């Protein structure tokens, strides 16, 4: 039996309606999938700037004397290297090494970390974190503060110039994966040089109710520079061109971060973290399957769930996790989870589309590389 609860709305709901956004149910959130069109928004983000409402993302605050010790134990990346003002991508793993979620940590203070998690995983992550917290008797507090923050991403080559019109803080000097606590349009915000598009850009955290103020101020300054609001459709194609993982597709409770190609964010030489022992065993045994990028050489577009076959077509070796036609190259691109022996760049494989096995090739990623 399924129960339908009313869709959650971000503080920007009325703005999306005014802008003609096409609203859909996205994991229980009523959010725009597109405004002007996915391709237009995608190309605009790559050539000018795109504005995204990502307020549905979850935020969890860890604070107290043991905050650093706790996050070090909790996630895969080396949080002890983070200074105040730094952000870091990391994986939250189960003891068996599989992924609970992927996330970004922000070190707000020596003893305060803000953790940004995937919207649909927020409750699950928070429960898992509390479990880990209780087991280890850490002297720190965990709070789900998701309802306190609106989050707006501004991404693209003009992003820095646009924000700079609204603040005195030197935004162009913020290094990638660093942030500033400053003021934009008179609102207290966290401006982080992070994103999910492969473009230069920022993710801005502000008090929930101030979302529309920041959004409209950015639209007003960005509009004349060609910036447009972008929906979840473009957000997905932008991240896909970069082969960034989407939890539930390229990373999941079935796919561990080593298989997902996220080994760079998994520091097995750390003294401990959830999933470390299992991941060491997995690494030592050799990966059976891997996440790869592929390109179709024949007609069609790879889609989630399509089967992938060996070159002779007599054995299934995996499946597509995400696919689309690249709005930049117009090529049919896909991400697939396949047996390691077929995963080398240049290898030929087959993707089954409506009964036909289409010649395809493993390619180097990201699929899109920024000019300059």
């Amino acid at each position, binding site marked *: 039996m399924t129960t339908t609860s009313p869709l959650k709305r971000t503080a920007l709901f009325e703005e999306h309606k005014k802008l003609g956004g096409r609203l859909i149910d996205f994991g229980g959130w009523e959010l725009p*999938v597109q405004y002007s069109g996915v391709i237009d928004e995608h190309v605009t983000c790559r050539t000018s700037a795109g504005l995204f409402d990502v307020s549905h993302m979850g935020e969890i605050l860890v604070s107290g004397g043991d905050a650093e010790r706790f996050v070090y134990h909790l996630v895969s990346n080396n949080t002890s290297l983070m200074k105040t003002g730094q952000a870091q991508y990391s994986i939250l793993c189960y003891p068996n090494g599989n992924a609970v979620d992927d996330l970004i940590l922000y070190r707000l203070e020596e003893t305060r970390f803000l953790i940004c998690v995937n919207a649909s995983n927020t409750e699950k992550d928070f429960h898992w974190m509390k479990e880990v917290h209780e087991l280890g008797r850490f002297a720190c507090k965990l709070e789900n503060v998701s309802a306190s923050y609106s989050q707006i991403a501004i991404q693209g080559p003009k992003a820095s110039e646009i924000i700079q019109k609204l603040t005195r803080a030197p935004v162009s000097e913020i290094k990638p994966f660093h942030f500033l606590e400053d003021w934009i349009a008179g609102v207290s915000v966290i401006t982080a040089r992070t994103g999910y598009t492969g473009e230069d850009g920022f993710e801005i955290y502000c008090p929930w109710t101030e979302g529309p103020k920041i959004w409209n101020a950015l639209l007003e300054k960005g509009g004349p520079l060609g910036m447009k609001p972008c929906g979840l459709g473009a957000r997905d194609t932008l991240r896909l061109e970069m082969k960034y993982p989407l939890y539930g597709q390229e990373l999941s409770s079935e796919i561990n971060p080593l298989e997902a190609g996220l080994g760079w964010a998994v520091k097995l030489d750390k003294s401990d973290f959830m999933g470390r022992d299992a991941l060491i065993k997995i690494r030592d045994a050799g990966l059976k399957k891997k996440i790869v990028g592929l390109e179709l050489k024949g007609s069609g577009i790879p889609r989630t769930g399509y089967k992938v076959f060996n070159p002779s077509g007599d054995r299934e070796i995996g499946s597509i996790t995400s696919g689309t036609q690249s709005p930049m190259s*117009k090529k049919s691109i896909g991400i697939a989870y396949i047996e390691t022996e077929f995963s080398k760049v240049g290898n030929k494989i087959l993707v089954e589309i409506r009964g036909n096995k289409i010649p395809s090739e493993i390619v180097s990623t990201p699929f899109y590389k920024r000019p300059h």
Partner: protein
Amino acid sequence: MKYPENYKYTKDHEWAKLEGNQITVGITDHAQSALGDIVFVELPKLGRELKSGETFGVVESIKAVSDLYSPLAGKVVSINDSLVAEPSLLNRDPHSAAWLIKIELKDVAAFDSLMDSKKYISFVETLK
């Protein structure tokens, strides 16, 4: 005027225009708008016999795959090749230049069983 009055329509959001014993088939403006940017079209081989409601091809947007269903039974006698090279024509001119196929009908009288434009417009209203 958005939905031509001399066309008939289906619940799968296709239109059909009758000429002699043939219908021209396309997708409606509502369908192209719901799909968004259309980037891929797959059409059947000439001569294929279709049952009423049978899948005869697909249109794909950036985000989604959508099957095409034959409004009536008959034989495929013509396909619009230009769509394969230029799928976005379906977004720009769905009711005319971006027709998909022509079908020689088994039973011309069956054409009258499809929805007229008024009925289709009110059907689309119920989906909003």
